[in-house]
């Protein structure tokens, strides 16, 4: 299985997410993560999809089947061009006086930050590549992780050319 990050530009219309997610489920594609947000153009939404596929052929099917949707404007495989990939995670860890200092060390090493503290827990935030996020989660698993929220990856290509002109 190989992972690819696709940037999908769609018309910002009601129902468009239903169309995209419906297609993914009925074609039985393997989606790792999906996130959507507004773009520099108000009538365009960008959906970032990480798919894991067995072969190039399967990837081709994901792209061409998605491409059939009427409200899909453009699909670019950002794994094929040089690009910067990021994911945001927030992790709530059980913490008291005895281990808070250790946790702060870990946070510093990963260049993460603590965004909330209470008597019993801290909330750690980190942006980075998926491997880095997997890394901090592994280290923190020695403590008691109460809750994790991840956004899934998004990416932008390097250089001045936007996806819509690719």
């Amino acid at each position, binding site marked *: 299985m190989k992972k690819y990050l696709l940037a999908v530009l*769609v*018309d910002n219309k*009601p*129902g468009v997410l*239903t*169309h995209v997610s*419906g*297609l993914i489920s*009925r074609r039985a594609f393997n989606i790792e993560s999906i996130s959507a947000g507004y773009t520099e153009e108000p009538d365009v939404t960008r959906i970032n999809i990480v798919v894991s596929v067995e072969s190039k*052929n399967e990837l*081709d*099917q994901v792209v*061409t*089947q998605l*491409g*059939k*949707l*009427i*409200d*899909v*404007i*453009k699909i670019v495989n950002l794994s094929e061009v040089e690009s910067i990939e990021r994911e945001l995670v927030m992790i709530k860890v059980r913490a008291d006086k005895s281990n808070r200092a250790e946790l702060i060390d870990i946070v510093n090493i990963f260049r993460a930050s603590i965004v909330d503290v209470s008597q019993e827990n801290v909330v750690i935030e980190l942006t980075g590549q998926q491997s880095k996020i997997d890394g901090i989660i592994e280290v923190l698993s020695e403590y008691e992780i109460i809750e994790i929220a991840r956004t899934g990856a998004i990416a932008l290509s390097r250089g001045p050319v936007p996806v819509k002109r690719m």
Partner: protein
Amino acid sequence: MNGAQAVLESLKKEGVDVVFGYPGGAVLTLYDAVYKMKFPHVLTRHEQGAIHAADGYARATGKVGVVFATSGPGATNLITGIATACTDSVPLVCITGQVANPYIGKDSFQEADIFGITTPITKHNYLVKDVKELPHVLKEAFFIARTGRKGPVVIDVAKDVFDAKIDYKYPETVTLRGYSGVYDGHEEEIAAAVEAVRKAERPLIFAGGGIISSDTADEVQKLAQKLGVPVTSTLLGLGSVPADTEGFLGFAGMHGSYASNMAIQKCDLLLCIGMRFSDRVTGRVDGFAPKAKIVHFELDRAEINKNVTADLQVLGDLRWTLPRFNEQLAAVGESFAEKFKGWKDEVLKMHKEHPFSFVEQGDVIKPGALIRKVSELSDKDTIAVTDVGQHQMWAAQFFDVFKPRHFLTSGGQGTMGYGLPAAMGAKIGAPQSKVVLFTGDGSIMMNCQEFATIADNNIDVKVVIVHNCILGMVGQWQRLFYNHHYSQSELKGKTDFVKLAEAMGLKGYRLTKKEELDTVLPQIMAEEGPALIDVLIPEEEDVLPMVPGGKRLDQMVLGGSK
């Protein structure tokens, strides 16, 4: 003008000459507009009847079929027909009522999420909550339904939108950023296909339903003529070359002809045109056409390499690619027909040795004999419609189809109950053609309420029930693979189809003996007006030949069909 009138004005602008439908609370304003504007409308007896009728109309004419249904159960009754049209790429626009805006999302009376439900089975769909959107949504819907790979579009309209006032202006053009509807091809792909033909020794043309829906049958016939190679087709491709074309082998696949399937396995070049490699046509995929270079002429890029890997793709609208392919082939200046003659003769010999056939048996009516007889009694302009089951396969085997849009069948979904309403829609769309339906005693019951529509509107359809007192195709599989356990497939009931016809207002006949095919049937077929013909055939008849599930095309079971 209100929203409802705007809908009808838009339909007029799109050239819609008839709508099939069924009223209800959410579309009362729409139906009031139908009344006031005297818009041509066929009231079916069930929404499923309406949508299959629109489908039959669309397949027979090439125009977009249009359906109205009310919200909730009215709209959900369309689902089977929408899926049927979607799998077979049939252009439809379905206008369904939705509860009024303030009631949406409240589990209101007759509320169902038709947008959500139809998303996976439409080419595109809309929920219209604001009357201002109506004109451009209608314009887009027709454009999407009838361009590119055709398909059904659903427009779900909130009830208050039909009542709302609108300053109506119909857009001249459509602007969709992600969809142009134009599919021009690439010269170099055509050149590569031409090169493949030049190198080939045993080419075969495989004609699919895309040829019918793009109206390019004449280009395919030219191609077949030019190359002088054998031609096979998919079920939906029947009619792309006339049945009496020299070199035509009938359809291929699970119940296709021996020669078609063997030629696919033996050829070294397979020119696949407008087809999607359904599992019913390929048999076991990894043993499909093992010696062939596969060239896939296809409009929908997502079809290429989906089920079968193509060696060459010729992407684009067949109306663009086929004429250029023919031109480039002509420019080569080789005498292809001469070069391929040996191969063609070899295949034709196989076809002659193993044609579609049946064994006569006393004075019972054999299904093959029945369908062949109806075929003989039909002219070349007759439209044959089928339901689903053994009779469908026998019809595909024994009815001679001479023109595109003259064999209508639910290929992709295999929808029982499709036949009667589709035949009715076909006759409405093509009144100059005779229309005959082949159906089964199982299938006919699934939408038999439409006999009433046929009788009330005097729609001249001849309904031939191939009556075997069993869900025949199910029975065949139970006989072959489940030890003759006819679990829930026997139909030895008290229903009298002749009386059913009479009760609904049309003529009914029953045939039980072979000689009646010569004595009575010709008279019935020649009469004006709709009729039901209940034809009793033996129960234990298999459709043969057959490629058992999971087997290769050359592992056909021929049976006694010599």
